[in-house]
């Protein structure tokens, strides 16, 4: 029954290991794809895939969190949890896209950035911050599709673009419902309740403008993603850089309320 799907059902669906990963989208949607690797600082983070390919003959840069389907893949891709090296590789790919004027397409599917000692030592916070700063000023269109889990800052680092679409069973949240329940109620078991309160489903996020459209799943999934990307790029590509950046700034600025002129209080 359609009406009985709970927010936590969506969470479980979003995490289903059988869901297509970024590699499936790449082979279904892009031709002549070439993967690019490495942050040029000493590592290639397997949890983020970067590359260049043709989308309907238009060269585009593709960036996406990578999850595996086998144990070996899961280890290699660290369950889609990236370190700073991954975000720095993504930044490199974005800057390169900007140089050649090609749009950036991101596929988001991560439980969150990896919480580990090495990740912290190498600047997890700084890398995510730099990715957000890079996205904010990039002079080419950026379209993100949240295909599974859109977890926290690790997801936002690839989703702060011009358009954010979500698959019907994708989720997007400030933290996992388990983490959220643990922090606020000291009880991770209350995750289903947290999922309900957090407004993390595509429908709820569409209604508040954080998501720009919902992509239907099922047999036509790849065709639906293709249609959505084609429509978004048809609208975004003709925009002049200034207009594109203005719209992108406003997209995020409006979640803080209107940009009113501030008033200085009198001294006395």
């Amino acid at each position, binding site marked *: 029954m359609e009406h009985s799907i709970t927010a936590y059902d969506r969470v479980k669906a979003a995490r289903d290991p059988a869901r297509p990963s970024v590699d499936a989208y790449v082979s279904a949607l892009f031709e002549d794809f070439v993967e690019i690797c490495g942050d040029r600082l000493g590592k290639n983070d397997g949890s983020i895939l970067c590359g260049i390919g043709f989308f309907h003959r238009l060269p585009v840069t593709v960036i996406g969190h990578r999850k595996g389907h086998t144990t070996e893949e899961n280890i290699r891709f660290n369950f889609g949890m990236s370190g700073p090296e991954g975000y720095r590789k993504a930044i490199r790919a974005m800057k390169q896209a900007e140089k050649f004027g090609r749009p950036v397409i991101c596929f988001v599917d991560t439980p969150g950035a990896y919480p*580990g000692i090495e990740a912290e030592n190498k*600047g997890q*916070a700084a890398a*995510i911050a730099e990715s*957000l700063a890079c996205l904010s000023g990039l002079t080419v269109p950026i379209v993100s599709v949240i295909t599974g889990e859109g977890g926290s800052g690790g997801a936002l680092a690839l989703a702060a673009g011009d358009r954010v679409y979500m698959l019907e069973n994708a989720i997007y949240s*400030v933290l996992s419902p388990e983490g959220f329940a643990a922090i606020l109620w000291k009880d991770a078991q209350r995750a289903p309740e947290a999922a309900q309160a957090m407004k993390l489903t595509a429908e709820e996020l569409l209604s508040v403008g954080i998501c720009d459209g919902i992509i239907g799943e099922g047999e036509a999934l790849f065709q639906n993603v293709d249609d959505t990307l084609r429509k978004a790029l048809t609208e975004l590509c003709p925009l002049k850089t200034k207009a594109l950046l203005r719209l992108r700034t406003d997209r995020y600025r409006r979640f803080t309320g209107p940009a009113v002129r501030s008033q200085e*209080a009198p001294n006395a």
Partner: protein
Amino acid sequence: MDINDVYVRKKHALQVFFTSVRKTAPAELLTCKGCGGVFSKEQAQEETFICPSCGAYLPMTPQDRLALVCDDGSFRELRIRAPKDDPLEFPEYRGRLSATRSKTQQKDAIVCGTARIDGLETAVAVMDSRFFMGSMGTAVGHAVCTLTEHAARKKLPLVIFCCSGGARMQEGIFSLMQMASTAAAVERFKNAGGFFLTVLCDPTMGGVSASFAFLGDIIAAEPGALIGFAGPRVITQTIGGTLPEGFQRAEWQLENGMIDLLLPRKRQKEAIARLLRLNRPVKDGAAFFREEE
């Protein structure tokens, strides 16, 4: 509401006397979280809010901090129209918000304004860890963006004292969006030639460290401050081990190349003023030598 304070230099210590500060009862006592020692507000001010017995940071209000770094009476608070409360309509949040407001006498976890620091006009923000652990929700995000835009318009340098547990959980996904909006605002400010200094205080974590806090042209930190993305508890749960001594502390971050310098409280004002002077835009370099002759 401004701070009407008087600085008196006495030997090496900087003593601060408040002639009139709202809501500061004369008998206000501060308890040290490190050793349990109890100090009067005056004693704490004399010690720059560092416990004289154990060296831990004593609790301080944004006004206390502004008094330590700003010239007497120079702070003008920016009245920023806050966005609507409780965007997620989260259970019990409104009640806790108003209780925290009356307890701290603050609207949210940040105070913004302009002040002079050793004579230099500066846009300043101070986060307040007493207010939902200094977490960033829509009000903090909006305040950071508005102050940054104000600094850009007035061509002022921007100094933000960061102190935050991360994103405001009760505002959910709307808090996450503040990371994008604040990062974008400071990036625009910097690209327009503005100087952005962040001072990371104990603690600076999560959504704040992973947005504007780590985007400073210069990133300074107070000694001993806990700085990072994931909290120590989350990391130990994930890796299932213990963390090395000193992990994520300011000194550790300096060693790892993540921050530029440590700013101890005692000479913080002097050091910030020096950074502001050093980072003024240079237009005609040769003119400086011509003046010498």
